[in-house]
């Protein structure tokens, strides 16, 4: 089990951090979140071109860097801390599920779809993310049904849709301009990550991964289960970054903000809450490293690690983001201050993969 970063991972962290500090500081995030696209396409291109983030875990044979989930976690922690707007996380989710499918199936679709994602030229998303995945039905190569929220669903060139078939779940690919597809951009809580409602009405779709047996002769269901565990770990890494950045911000403010003649960080009422927030950070960090290690090295431990990561880190991230906002006082409630952006990202992330109770219920099934 590896819970600390390797020298290479520390280099990756430094590279992503310095890139984002220069290319997407919070002032820029605010500008981009109110732009027509909701993100800066040039920054997104460089993020994938120079740093290769969208293809980080995609195998080299499909045009990616062939790195591990522990490396991906390092990168997503930084994009989370920076509240990076845009479709990186959604595209990474798509890369994860296609990479899992590629490892299992000998399908042509996967081979054709992965290189564009790895190169950063295809914006993709995976939906629905919630555990209740019965909203879309597949029949005769077409999809029908609705997905109430899909991250970056309106911007994506490629939609990967989990649909119900006569033999269980299957993964389908839908092109952006497919007939019968309507995408309704939604105004959601977090202005730094856009979401859309997707409606399918006999929409042609390409089967990516489905029933029967995989190349190893195993039932296919575990491909999607494992992919969603990996998605849980990736999201937890982003949440760890949001948590860390929120705590850093309020610690810095507590050192300089003066009330009643001294810095507020010197009051135990403030100091002790910050100490508790630090304890959450330490534990969230250890859990994310453990889950990412399990993703790469210990498949048997992944289901529990993934559920633990969402159950603990999702909650801790929101609690810290909330307390960081509250400890700022009234200014934290203003639109001009950045505190609400962390708060909103944290709450959105906490429910992105379904109500948090589903992660706890899953964990209960595994450990009790």
């Amino acid at each position: 089990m590896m819970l600390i970063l390797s020298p290479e991972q520390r280099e990756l962290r430094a590279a992503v951090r310095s890139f984002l500090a220069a290319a997407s500081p919070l002032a820029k995030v605010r500008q981009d979140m109110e732009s027509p696209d909701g993100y800066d396409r040039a920054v997104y291109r460089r993020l994938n071109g120079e740093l290769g983030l969208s293809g980080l875990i995609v195998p080299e044979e499909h045009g990616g860097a062939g790195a591990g989930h522990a490396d991906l976690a390092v990168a997503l922690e930084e994009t989370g801390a920076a509240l990076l707007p845009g479709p990186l996380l959604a595209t990474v989710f798509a890369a994860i599920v296609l990479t899992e499918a590629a490892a299992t199936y000998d399908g042509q679709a996967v081979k054709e779809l992965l290189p564009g994602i790895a190169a950063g030229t295809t914006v993709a998303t995976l939906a629905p993310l919630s555990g209740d995945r019965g909203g879309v039905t597949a029949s005769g190569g077409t999809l029908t049904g609705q997905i109430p929220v899909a991250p970056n669903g309106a911007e994506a060139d490629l939609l990967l849709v989990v649909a119900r078939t006569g033999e269980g779940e299957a993964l389908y690919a839908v092109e952006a301009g497919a007939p019968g597809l309507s995408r309704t951009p939604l105004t959601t809580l977090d202005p730094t990550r856009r979401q859309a409602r997707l409606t399918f009405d006999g929409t042609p779709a390409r089967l990516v991964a489905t029933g029967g047996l995989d190349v190893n002769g195993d039932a296919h269901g575990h491909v999607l289960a494992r992919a969603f565990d990996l998605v849980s770990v990736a999201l937890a890494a982003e949440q760890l970054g949001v948590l860390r950045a929120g705590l850093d911000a309020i610690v810095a403010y507590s050192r300089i903000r003066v009330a009643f003649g001294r810095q507020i960080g010197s009051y135990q009422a403030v100091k002790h809450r910050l100490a508790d927030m630090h304890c959450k950070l330490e534990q969230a960090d250890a859990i994310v490293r453990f889950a990412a290690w399990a993703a790469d090295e210990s498949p048997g431990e992944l289901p529990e690690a993934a559920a633990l990561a969402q159950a603990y880190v999702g909650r801790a991230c929101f609690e810290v983001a909330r307390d960081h906002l509250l400890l700022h006082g009234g200014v934290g409630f203003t639109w001009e201050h950045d505190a609400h952006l962390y708060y909103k990202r944290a709450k959105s992330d906490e429910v992105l993969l379904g109500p948090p109770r589903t992660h706890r219920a899953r964990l209960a099934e595994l450990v009790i």
Partner: protein
Amino acid sequence: MDLEEYRRQARDWLAANVPGAPAEGSAAEDGVATAREFMARLYDAGYSGITWPAEWGGQGLTQAEDRAFAAEAARVSLPIYVFSIGLGMCGPTLVDLGTPEQKARHIRRLLRGEEIWCQLFSEPGAGSDVAALQTRAVPADDGGWIVNGQKVWTSVAQHADYGLLLARTDVEVPKHKGLTMLIVDMHAPGVTVRPLKDMTGRAHFNEIFFDDVHIAPGSVVGEVNGGWSSAVTTLLHERLSISSGVGMSGPRDNPASLDALREVVDVQDPLVRDQLVELHIRSRALALFNAKLSQETKAGIFPGARGSAAKLLLAELTNFQADLAVSLAGPQALAYEPGGGGLAGAIALAPAMSLGGGTNEIMRNIIGDRVLNLPPEPRADKNVPFKDLKVGTQS
């Protein structure tokens, strides 16, 4: 020998040598005799003082061997509770700060179970604010010291041969600057040990009275009037030893563990399941944090004050767990099991974890001041000579 082989041999040795029944508390004298005898065998087998310098009687091995042995030892309960203060705090302080004579005199004997040690810092008027202590040590004619005062919360003092004493040696300077750490012979005339019955109904601690106790020359640990710095060393070791569980009972003995609770509650009840999941989440979160700290230590990153976060979290988990377990089990949990154990024993003992080794509030101060580098609280006592402060019985 590679680590796996080391670990396998440790497991075999423990299986062959650890007595079946845990000697928890080891209150009885025969328990102490058993513990001394066990320590001698542990030492002879090479498992006492694994990372301590070989020069003074340790094994001179690395953290890797230490952790491998600790992991095996956690499966059983080593009957060494009475040595936990010496092994976890006093011994490591002597290794860090002792004179060659002190190390030669004590360390091997401590590791072999020939000396039981206690730590004498807290006083009735100096708990969290331990630097406010009033026990006085004045120079004796022979170059030693004469001590008068009272100490409290002293674990295993009733069995101890030696104590690490923090006493005031200068009242004319601010309180942190007039303290000295001394080795005291607990069998010396004028030392009175009185058991202190705590809320569990048992005496885990003692009160100690010093009446004109003579301390031999050569007993200062660190510098005269530099005792605060020595005490900080001891307290760092204390927090690390608490969070790593030196001398504590293994998880199999914990009646509030998830494994134990599964046997007494209805795990199909959704409300019960949610609470058990919360317990699992918190336990795993802390276990992984502790594992991360030890990986960092191995990689040369000393956790320092971050160990206070581990100690705080362990205290909170212990209280949460005992509280939850009694509530889940219901009224039958209220009956003590033989020996004061069971869930009633667990809930009665739980507050100790939040109070011993620094309270939760002190831990939060340390995390705030030394991990987050927050500004310190303004202090009224910082630059005032000790004799002018209102502390304890001094007004």
